[in-house]
């Protein structure tokens, strides 16, 4: 079984050149952007609904949870807001990933499309949402300026590591979700539990002896690696180690799996 094809990129049978990556990444970005525009076309405040809903969520939780836990608001509110924003991007990527390919079945079956471009489209949509939500992060740092320190810059490499991880998660779950249709309800059932196991509503040291529960949730590390520096806490070696290991192991798994199965995708969706 062999297949060679020269579509739009001259003389690149394996199609893994820097030029083709840039070309496809730009296409994915454009499509993600136009999808977002289409989604909010007839809405007045558009994607800022997302910001507003995060804000409402933060407000409600801050009142209830703050009273319940007797938390220091100046500490708790920014931690909660930034945590929720990150969680939305993470959980949005994971829950939508399982149907990323089946939702785009019409495109996969009618236009020759590299599967990774579709995964990248989903990640870019999440990044666009995240960028809108950045308004809230700025707002938090403006209200609680004492949090701001040079450590905050560590959030940037942290975020890049998280996005690298999310891309393989989307890609693997996309393939598995196209083949096994039970994965979508399964993932939707697990995500709320992972939310309560993540350090969004509290910080890991507040769990005391039970902090190990959170350590079993891989998504916890994604939240902490970005949020901790923003809140003025130095980077934690364990968190960095976990995220880097996940990226390496995850991408190896992904490349191995998609290499074996990429030709089957059009038959699955």
């Amino acid at each position: 079984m062999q297949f060679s094809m020269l579509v739009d990129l001259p003389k690149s049978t394996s199609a893994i050149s820097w030029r083709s990556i840039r070309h496809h990444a730009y296409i994915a970005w454009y499509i993600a952007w136009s999808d977002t525009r289409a989604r909010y076309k007839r809405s007045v405040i558009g994607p800022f609904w997302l910001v507003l809903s995060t804000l409402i969520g933060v407000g409600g939780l801050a009142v209830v949870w703050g009273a319940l836990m007797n938390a220091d608001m100046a500490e708790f509110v920014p931690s909660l807001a930034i945590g929720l924003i990150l969680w939305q991007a993470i959980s949005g990527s994971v829950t939508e990933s399982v149907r990323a390919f089946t939702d785009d079945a019409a495109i996969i079956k009618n236009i020759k499309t590299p599967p990774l471009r579709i995964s990248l489209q989903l990640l870019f949509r999440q990044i666009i949402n995240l960028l809108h939500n950045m308004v809230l992060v700025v707002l938090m740092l403006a209200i609680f300026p004492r949090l701001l320190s040079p450590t905050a810059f560590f959030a940037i490499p942290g975020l890049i590591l998280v996005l690298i991880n999310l891309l393989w998660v989307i890609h693997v779950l996309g393939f598995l979700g196209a083949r096994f249709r039970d994965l979508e309800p399964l993932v939707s059932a697990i995500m709320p539990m992972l939310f309560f196991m993540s350090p969004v509503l509290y910080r890991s040291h507040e769990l005391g002896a039970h902090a190990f529960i959170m350590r079993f949730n891989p998504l916890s590390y994604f939240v902490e690696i970005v949020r901790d520096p923003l809140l003025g806490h130095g980077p934690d070696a364990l968190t960095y180690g976990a995220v880097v290991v996940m990226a390496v192991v995850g991408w190896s798994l992904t490349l191995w799996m998609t290499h074996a199965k990429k030709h089957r995708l059009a038959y699955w969706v």
Partner: protein
Amino acid sequence: MARVILDDVSVEYPIYSAGAFSLRSRLIAIGTGGRISNVSRHVKTVAALDGLNLEFKDGDRVGLVGHNGSGKSTLLRTIAGIFTPTRGKISAEGRISTVFELGAGLQRELSGYDNIIRMSMMLGTSRAEAEANISDIEAFTELGDFLAMPVHTYSSGMSTRLIFAVATSTNPEILLVDEVFATGDADFQERAQRRMTAFVEKANILVLATHSDTVVESLCNRQIRLEHGLLCSDEAMLGPENSEPPSNAEC
């Protein structure tokens, strides 16, 4: 130069029953060594193409005919690289553009102009190229001010015009078309045929699946008949002026 060679190409669709699609049966199969549930090991397949040997070269204007389910669409999608043959080898050289299921990749909330860029980019052109093609598409579609309106306001004939114009504007060397002449008014059908004739004169490859003998007669110089995924006949046609009616031999 464009060329497509199919060497003993077979395509088999796996038919996953609900059982084979589910994770549970796969887990049970693993957990029990596959003795209780072996659905996943014996996925039924349907042969859509069966050992096809074909070669298309510059200047070929191929009309693909055959009953529903004879494998026309599968053959087009295999040439386009969407389906990888389960057996055999295919090689295609040249820029490929496809006009398949109408509406794939169309974002109905966005305007015609936005969709021109979007669809062109999905077909693999750069944004600059796509923007350069806009005036050509404006001229062909004659949609006028409608191009600035959301596509959901279009009639099906108007969307057909837009999609067809975009697919042919990407300046492909190989154009694959799956029965699009069913929609669109007589005027559009005539102009679409003219555009394809002009396209074909640039000595490239056209493969067109259709049920209409008149379309085959007016556009094609070669007719391939498929039946149950098998090649039934492959004959040269003399052209529109002195063509004989294509034989309808049963296979």
